[in-house]
């Protein structure tokens, strides 16, 4: 089974990928009101994500949702830096344990926009 993680792109993120190969992977949602890049997630990768972040879940669309904000932010940064290999990179034990401690703080406080 294959799953999806959608990375939502706001203006700032769109600027960061302008002119890169990622630009061709941008997908429109809601009539183009939202832009996303869909990353394919293998069964094994999905298992690792769900184990690391117990609140995350797979929704009816087979999308992995409710991962911590710090995970999604770092995943985008790695996508820009490492391209297709971003998911493997973020799932390295040292990265996951760092993100887990950041995620624990997110349960208590998130900075408003």
């Amino acid at each position, binding site marked *: 089974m294959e799953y999806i993680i*959608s990375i*939502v792109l*706001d203006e700032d993120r769109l600027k960061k990928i302008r002119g890169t190969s990622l630009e061709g992977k941008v997908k*429109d*949602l*809601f*009539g183009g*009101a*939202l832009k996303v890049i869909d990353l394919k997630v293998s069964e094994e990768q999905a298992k690792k994500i769900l184990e690391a972040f117990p*609140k995350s*879940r797979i*929704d*009816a*669309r087979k*999308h992995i*949702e*409710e*991962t911590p*904000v710090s995970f*999604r*932010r770092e995943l985008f940064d790695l996508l820009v830096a490492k391209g297709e290999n971003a998911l493997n990179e973020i799932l390295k034990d040292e990265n996951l344990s760092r993100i887990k401690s950041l995620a624990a703080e*997110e*349960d*208590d*406080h*998130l*900075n*408003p*926009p």
Partner: protein
Amino acid sequence: MNSLKIQTPEPHGGRLVNNVRPMAVSEKEYPALNIEPEIDKLSSTVIRNVYREIMSIAHGFFSPLDRFMTRNEVERVLKERRLLDGWIFPFPIIFDVDQERLNELKVKEGDSILLRLKGKPFALLNVDEIWKFDPREIADRTFGTPDANPDAVKRAFDHKHPGWSMYAQMSGTAIGGKVYIINEPKFKGVYSRFWYPPEQCRAEFKRRGWRTVIAHQTRNVPHMGHEHLMKEAAFMGDTEPCNGILVNAIVGAKRLGDFVDEAILEGHEALNKFGYIGPARHMVTMTLWDMRYGGPLESLLHAIIRQNMGCTHHMFGRDHAATGDYYDPYSTQTLWEKGLASFGLNEPPFDIDKGVKIRPVNMQEFWYCPVCGEIAYSQTCAHRDKAERFSGSFIRGLIAEGIKPPAVIFRPEVYNIIVRWWRAFGYPFVNKRYLDLKERELEVDLDEVNM
């Protein structure tokens, strides 16, 4: 000859309960108990405060129920989903109490207990019966099991389910008897303008000239899918669309990750304040209740509450008032189409003796269709494979990341309200800190009473 025009239904059971009897009582006259929030042992979060049930009973939301249930009544509810007088009712409403505390108070049947809230006299509870029960058994029978209720329950309930957990962690000793509010709490801040107990709500409908009113149950800040559900469902009236849409938010202890009550109420209000659904047809109210997340059973309670408030119709969507995958996502709609025999409801609740008199409007879902180029109804739009759904978890993720959702997901004014309460609480959703604060402060304050 019966007219095709639908009129305001009678309250469930024929009369509205009013157990609000302001009076000064002496603490020396009665043994006294402090009402405290109940904490879930597994998650250490608040799951219930029985004051909300007392408010809802005494103000008639649960009419004809005017009391905490006795053993026989709970037994009948669990077997047939009926009160002792035969009117249908979905949940056991139990005042459980710590046995040691009860021994200290030396309370016996026939006595009354003074219930204090926030240290002040609040209510009197008549002790008609003190009875014992097995909390785990009551929890299983309340929500059902895959073996006993295969028409609705897909997975056995466990401690991750807040409603099941609430019953399973009760003390095992209960007091059954009528309850009266003697010192009426005053709602604070945002809550006061949304409090319309059934009698006032019916009077407000009359004042507005609303004959047909459709109820919208909510525990969410409204996204565009909800807005379209409200607008489209309201077209189901009689000779014209419903005169009014009543949003009735459930206010109380909630699941971690749900939206905060303040944002839910003001978010819905923003829809009429900014004209997306004209205020002449839209009204936002609340009911105090710590959600059981009981899917079809919760939908039956919602129908009773909203019939008591004077609504003629009630919209029910997919996965109504549920969490997790314990119930079949369409079990609520099955209940309202043909009944759920395993719960003692052999026919739809409106077709059985002493059933409800509110009309269900079963709706499926609204999605964004890129082919139609609009928000479309799943049963009329044929582009299912292209549909983009309003996934709650996706939207929560978007908000948490601080990305402003486009207007096709949230009206900008509604999003601004989410952000306003996010700034107030340091978090956009219910978290442990919010629950602790909410249960310490509650939605109400009480005056001192001269004894």
